[in-house]
């Protein structure tokens, strides 16, 4: 060829050609050099001038905190409050990835451009709720179980003092009650009805994946209690998921029968440090007028007529009767030297609270952190009561290598509670103010000394006791979790978590030498100290795989141990040198000293598999084997399991025509078995107690019957759910469930002639069934105006199926446990009103005729009247309505909760009805309507010193009252200052807010607060309070 070319082209032309080639190539190289130069110049520019950009949403609003990273190098940053970011120089070939929760991630090729404007589109799927079960996190659309999620981001504006405030009304099927409104008081939560009678009916609490200690940790065993959840600052909580069915709960096995509350605390996000400051202040008062009593004058009038009526009834002349009344009235209702006394003013106060919080969070692609510190100081509505908490948290996660991740969550919290008695002790503030101490009792004598001669209380002056005596609780909790996970091959992860939940509780109870409680001892100090340790070690191997794009599988295998240790010591000393120096060592006599320890352990093996096909068909199954120390060796291993399925109908082709209005349609079903352990750690053993003694010698006492067959309560849980979505705006979730709890642990009563009164057996069965409805709607979603509404409604029906197969009813105080009826069915004499002619109370005899029907014969003799089962404590419907509105700078939230169909029994009427039996107590205001003359139609009997059958001595249906209420649970109004103002001050956001809890209440029976009820019984606990809060929230 060269020969040929040589031949073809002469030398000169060849040269020319060569030159042309050379010049062309030169030109090319010039071009390419030029191009290369441009390129390197760009690179240099970027190294000197970083790549800048802005991330905005579909409406053009800046997105704060969006993650921006370079795909190739994994270097990243986050957007600032203007949505702006800057990255070190990138080359033309580089691509940045921009992502933000709730939006579709975008990859952007830089292509040499700068000042990028990146618009993120909302991702409707991601915007959905996430269900965090503790053993996994699911998109709600891919979740087959029943769970309610409380997104704290929506509640962040609402100042919450306690954790349970966050759940109130937000999660359908969750019922919260507390016998006391004292700060820090223990709360009881029932999910989908009462599933256990004698074992705990409380859900399992899981914090950041670790089952934790829960419930009342009061060292003094106070009436109000001290909830261990009060150690946690609600601002640290990111998400609360309430698991209600078996699908996810069964993985928690033997502790999950009453549901699981999964709490996730806040984690850091990639980006520069975000500092959040929050402070609020406020005050509180009774939410409703609580058990009002007659004032001095009204009381005097009532008693006067009672004495008069007594003598008239004994056939004294009117004149003589009045003479007696004039004489005795000075004994029972005299006006004291200082005028009639309002003891409320002496014993109660307006509560107040203040809280301060600071948190710093942030992260890089390797380390994420969240730290916080908070202080809370609450004063209760009873003088000298209150709670203080200091709590700190650090959550850190560190990606050590591509495969190894290490992390830790640490909580340190101290709580101090000043508590008071809520029982019927003479100096308990509520019992004193509402019953025992009357307007005729002066707190002081005229000479300024304490009045120690009260009408009914004698020398027990409650104000004096309040002045010197105290009950204090201290709790210090250190809850630490460390974990490490290792990814062997992609998606095959082994995670090991070790958690140590350590709690010290102390109680100090001081009876001062000045008071009726302590003077006989010359001062008495009772001090208690307990230590609780819970060590959980959990190991999980998980694997996710997608086969042929359509089949998604995830597997989990686990092994866990849980060891709980409790150690307790307490002592009492008396006879102190000086009342202000009441250290235990200063007491000169020991009156008691004791201590013990107890333990409980659990070993578990678990497995789970989830499968889905094209995100359309979902199947899941789980199994857990638990071994517990609370059961006999041959009976202690139990297997719990669940199966679940879901069908996203909306994904089917045949749904296409409906897709323009129907955005979601999903059918879910789950069934499974989980359990409840006996509360008693040693309940199966036949035991002789060693704690009693006689004359300094030890003693044996037979205390418990052996039952080696003792087992778990088994909860069979069926749930069927249906999810609808319309126009991506309106979402409706409907759930139907049946919970059957079998082998209920019952204290089976035995004849006392055996020397025992009962023993623990798996006897009963209870069924809870119901429906839950949740409707959430986005009414407006404009740039300047947003309005969301959520409505929840739930209904639960509780029914005892079997007690022991032998007995069909067990009477328990004012309630009866009867087969076929709700657990808390009342059992009372039926009140038949007041005889309009005589003013005497009447009752229905309720004997049974041959057909078993009650005979409604009226009698004035309650001993001739039979008690019958009537009504029940459990409400038929409960729920809430919440609205979130946002207009420009302003936001408004309000939540209304309601409850209908339940009743409560006023247990304390036995003390207060007719003002007691001796006219030396307070009289409820409703006795103003007492019968006065023939023809009066009323519910309250005539005032008479002598009552043949005093109402206070008989448990009648007159004490039964509806607990229906509608309550404005929360109202919050906030102003967020415009960012262009706050930016000048170097602040990201500044928000001021005012918020009120329980501002308005409508109650069908409003003599006492319908929520001051526990287990169907209204006691004299502190009622719920109405709280006003003013606060400011600043993000730097």
């Amino acid at each position, binding site marked *: 060829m060269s020969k040929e070319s040589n031949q073809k082209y002469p030398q000169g032309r060849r040269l020319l050609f060569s030159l042309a080639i050379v010049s062309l190539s030169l030109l090319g190289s010039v071009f390419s050099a030029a191009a290369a130069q441009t390129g390197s110049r760009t690179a240099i520019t970027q190294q000197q001038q970083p790549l800048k950009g802005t991330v905005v949403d579909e409406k053009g609003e800046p997105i704060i905190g969006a993650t921006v990273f370079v795909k190739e190098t994994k270097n990243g940053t986050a957007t600032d409050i203007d949505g702006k970011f800057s990255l070190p120089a990138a080359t033309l070939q580089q691509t940045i990835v921009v992502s933000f929760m709730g939006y579709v991630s975008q990859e952007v090729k830089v292509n040499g451009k700068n000042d990028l404007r990146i618009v993120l589109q909302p991702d409707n799927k991601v915007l959905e709720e996430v269900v965090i079960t503790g053993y996994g996190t699911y998109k709600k659309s891919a979740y087959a179980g029943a769970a309610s999620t409380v997104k704290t981001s929506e509640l962040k504006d609402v100042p919450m003092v306690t954790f349970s405030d966050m759940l109130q009304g937000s999660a359908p099927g969750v019922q919260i009650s507390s016998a006391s409104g004292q700060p820090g008081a223990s709360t009881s939560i029932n999910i989908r009805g009462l599933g256990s009678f004698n074992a705990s009916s409380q859900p399992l609490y899981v914090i950041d994946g670790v089952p934790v200690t829960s419930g009342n940790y009061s060292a003094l065993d106070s009436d109000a209690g001290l909830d261990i959840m009060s150690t946690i600052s609600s601002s640290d909580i990111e998400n609360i998921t309430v698991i209600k069915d078996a699908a996810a709960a069964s993985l928690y096995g033997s502790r999950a029968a009453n549901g699981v509350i999964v709490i996730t605390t806040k984690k850091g996000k990639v980006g520069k440090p975000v500092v959040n400051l929050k402070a609020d202040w406020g005050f509180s008062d009774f939410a409703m007028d609580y058990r009002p009593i007659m004032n001095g004058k009204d009381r005097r009038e009532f008693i006067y007529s009672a004495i008069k009526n007594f003598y008239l009834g004994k056939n004294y002349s009117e004149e003589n009767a009045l003479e007696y009344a004039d004489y005795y009235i000075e004994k029972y209702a005299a006006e004291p030297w200082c005028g009639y006394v309002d003891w409320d003013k002496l014993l109660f106060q307006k509560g107040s609270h203040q809280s301060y919080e600071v948190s710093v969070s942030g992260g890089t692609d390797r380390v994420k952190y969240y730290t916080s510190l908070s202080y809370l100081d609450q004063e209760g509505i009873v003088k000298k009561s209150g709670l203080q908490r200091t709590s700190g948290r650090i959550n850190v996660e560190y990606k050590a290598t591509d495969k190894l991740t290490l992390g830790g969550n640490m909580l340190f919290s101290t709580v101090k509670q000043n508590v008071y008695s809520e029982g019927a002790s003479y100096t308990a503030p509520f019992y004193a103010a509402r019953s025992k101490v009357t307007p005729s009792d002066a707190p002081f004598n005229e000479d300024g000394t304490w009045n120690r001669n009260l009408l009914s209380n004698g020398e027990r002056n409650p104000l004096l006791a309040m002045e010197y005596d105290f009950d204090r609780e201290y709790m210090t909790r250190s809850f630490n979790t460390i974990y490490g996970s290792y990814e062997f091959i992609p998606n095959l992860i082994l995670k090991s978590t070790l958690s140590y939940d350590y709690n010290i509780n102390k109680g100090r109870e001081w009876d001062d030498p000045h008071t009726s409680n302590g003077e006989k001892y010359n001062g008495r100090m009772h001090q208690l100290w307990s230590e609780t340790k819970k060590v959980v070690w959990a190991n999980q191997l998980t694997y996710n795989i997608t086969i042929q794009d359509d089949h998604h599988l995830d597997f989990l295998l686990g092994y866990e141990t849980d060891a709980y240790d409790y150690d307790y010591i307490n002592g009492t000393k008396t006879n102190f040198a000086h009342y202000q120096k009441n250290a235990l060592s200063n007491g000169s006599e020991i009156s008691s000293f004791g201590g013990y320890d*107890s333990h409980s352990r659990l070993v578990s093996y678990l497995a789970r598999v989830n499968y889905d096909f094209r995100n359309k068909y979902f199947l899941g199954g789980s199994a857990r084997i638990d071994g517990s120390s609370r059961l006999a060796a041959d009976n202690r291993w139990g297997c719990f399991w669940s199966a679940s399925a879901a069908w996203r109908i909306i994904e089917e082709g045949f749904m296409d025509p409906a897709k323009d209005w129907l955005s979601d349609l999903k059918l879910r079903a789950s069934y499974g078995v989980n359990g409840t352990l006996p509360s008693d750690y040693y309940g199966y053993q036949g035991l002789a*107690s060693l704690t*009693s003694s006689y*004359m300094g010698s030890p003693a044996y006492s037979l205390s418990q019957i052996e039952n080696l067959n003792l087992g778990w309560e088994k909860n069979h849980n069926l749930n069927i759910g249906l999810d609808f979505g319309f126009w991506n705006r309106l979402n409706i979730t409907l759930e139907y469930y049946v919970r059957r709890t079998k082998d209920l642990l019952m204290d089976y009563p035995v004849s006392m002639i055996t020397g025992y009164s009962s023993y623990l057996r798996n006897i009963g069965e209870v069924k809870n069934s119901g429906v839950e409805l949740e409707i959430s709607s986005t009414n407006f979603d404009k740039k300047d105006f947003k309005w969301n509404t959520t409505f929840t409604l739930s209904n639960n029906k509780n029914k005892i199926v079997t007690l022991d197969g032998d007995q069909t009813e067990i009477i328990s105080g004012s309630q009866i446990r009867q087969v076929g009826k709700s657990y808390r069915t009342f059992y009372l004499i039926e009140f038949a009103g007041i005889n309009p002619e005589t003013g005497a109370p009447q009752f229905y005899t309720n004997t049974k005729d041959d057909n078993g029907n009650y005979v409604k014969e009226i009698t004035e003799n309650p001993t001739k009247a039979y008690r019958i089962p009537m009504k029940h404590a459990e409400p038929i419907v409960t729920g809430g309505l919440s609205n979130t509105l946002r207009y420009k700078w302003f936001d408004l939230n309000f939540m209304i909760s309601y409850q209908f169909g339940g009743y409560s029994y006023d247990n304390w009427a036995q003390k207060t009805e007719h003002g007691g039996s001796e006219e030396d107590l307070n009289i409820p205001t409703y006795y103003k309507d007492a019968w006065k003359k023939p023809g009066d139609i009323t519910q309250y009997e005539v005032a008479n010193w002598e009552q043949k059958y005093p109402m206070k001595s008989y448990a009648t249906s007159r004490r039964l009252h509806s607990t229906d209420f509608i309550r404005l649970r929360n109202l919050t109004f906030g102003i967020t200052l415009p960012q262009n103002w706050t930016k000048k001050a170097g602040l990201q956001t500044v928000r001021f807010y005012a918020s009120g809890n329980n501002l308005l209440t409508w109650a069908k029976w409003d003599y006492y607060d319908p929520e001051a009820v526990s287990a169907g019984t209204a006691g004299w606990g502190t009622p719920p309070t109405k709280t006003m809060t003013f606060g400011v929230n600043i993000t730097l």
Partner: protein
Amino acid sequence: MKKIKEIIVASSLLLCGACGNNWLDLEPSTYMPTDNIINELNDIDLVLNGVYSTMQNAYAYSGRFVYYADATGDDMQAAKVSNRTGSYYVMKFTKDDSPSTFWSYPYFMLNLCNLAIEQTDKIETTEEDLKNYYLGEAYALRALFHFDLTRFYGYPYQKDGGKSLGVPIVTTQLAPETQLPRNTVAECYTQVIEDLKKAIDLMDNDEGKAFQKGHINRWASMLLLSRVYLYQGDNENAYKMATEAIAGAEKAGYHLWSTEEYPTAWAADAGDAKTAGEVLFEIVNTTDDGPGNESLGYLHNTKGYYDICVTSSFYDLLTEDPNDVRIQLLKLKEDVGYFVYKYQPQSGEVIQNANIPLLRLSEAYLIAAEAAQKLGDNTNAVKYLNPIVERANPENSVEGTTVTLERIMTERRKELVAEGHRMFDALRDGGYVERIDSPKPKTPNTHLVMDAAAMKFNWDYYKCVLAIPKAEMDVNKSLEQNPEYGN
């Protein structure tokens, strides 16, 4: 390949760090397995301590079991209806709220007694006397509980010769689901007498005859047996047993308190004494296992709950002789009433922890006198009544007189007030509890308002016995409720 090995090793290490079944075997720190408590003779003593310790409870012998017959009688009354003793005083209880502790505590203790009785035989020991003494204690206590149950729930023996219903007799440890019907009052008495005879025999040794602080011994058992005979109307045996008790006890060092000792002996002897005095059997309460505010010490004290005081009629009766030493036990609480200071604390202790004398030598004298009088033996009636009369006021004497039953009963009221006797004493021979105020009350208190039927009653009043508690009736289907309480 290496990776797979790595996965298997690491995973199995973490997933199968299996803690065995043994890791789950835990025992409580304050209990023993029931099967394992009796191994040697000393363990029987610990079981008996369990009985005494239960007796200490204010719902048992440090409170309710004792004040019951005082509150329901006519010599004492609740200062207020709302007091702890108020419901007993106005005879308020119905079948629905009849307090369960009158039933549950005795049976709880009977179970322990039966455990002791069943197990003692199996123990090999060389300390034969001690073993017999423990066994004797168990029998005597078993008799006491059956007898008190019969007093609470069964009509007086002499009402119908014991034909009416008493309580189920329990002489063995029962299986958990056992249900037994009520035995007749007569059957209960038979069992009580048999047990006491056994106890007296078993305690016929140095251990049983000695002063046993806080424990029942031979002399206390004899006194109890004489009381049972007296209730039964068996005056011969009552006399015989009471006089034997007196003779034996006095030989063992027991003696009646002197007039001078009397006002303070309640604290000194019934409390601190380490040697025999007048108290044959008492419950010893101490600071670290005190019965609390519901105890007799607190209820009877003007600095406690001042719950139960003497009636105006009894005040008149006791102050007939203004020099009666027993008046010194009365303490006035202004505007409330006179309180009986028999439950006095031991030195260094608070009033709640006062000891509870249950069997006192004085009662043996009174029983001997009463039985003798009923047998027509005035000599011995005088012989045994006089020491009590003379002690109350050394200037008084019944010597040389013919004492009437009423005279003896009046002395018994004065001597044993506040010790849990009155209603039983008033009704056992067919008499009445009669709550009438003195025409000119010298006490701040008079009787409170109550059902007319409770103002004066004898053994025909249905509330002179308690209703069997509802919790028991609900479970034990073989029981019959006391008449007139309704279903």
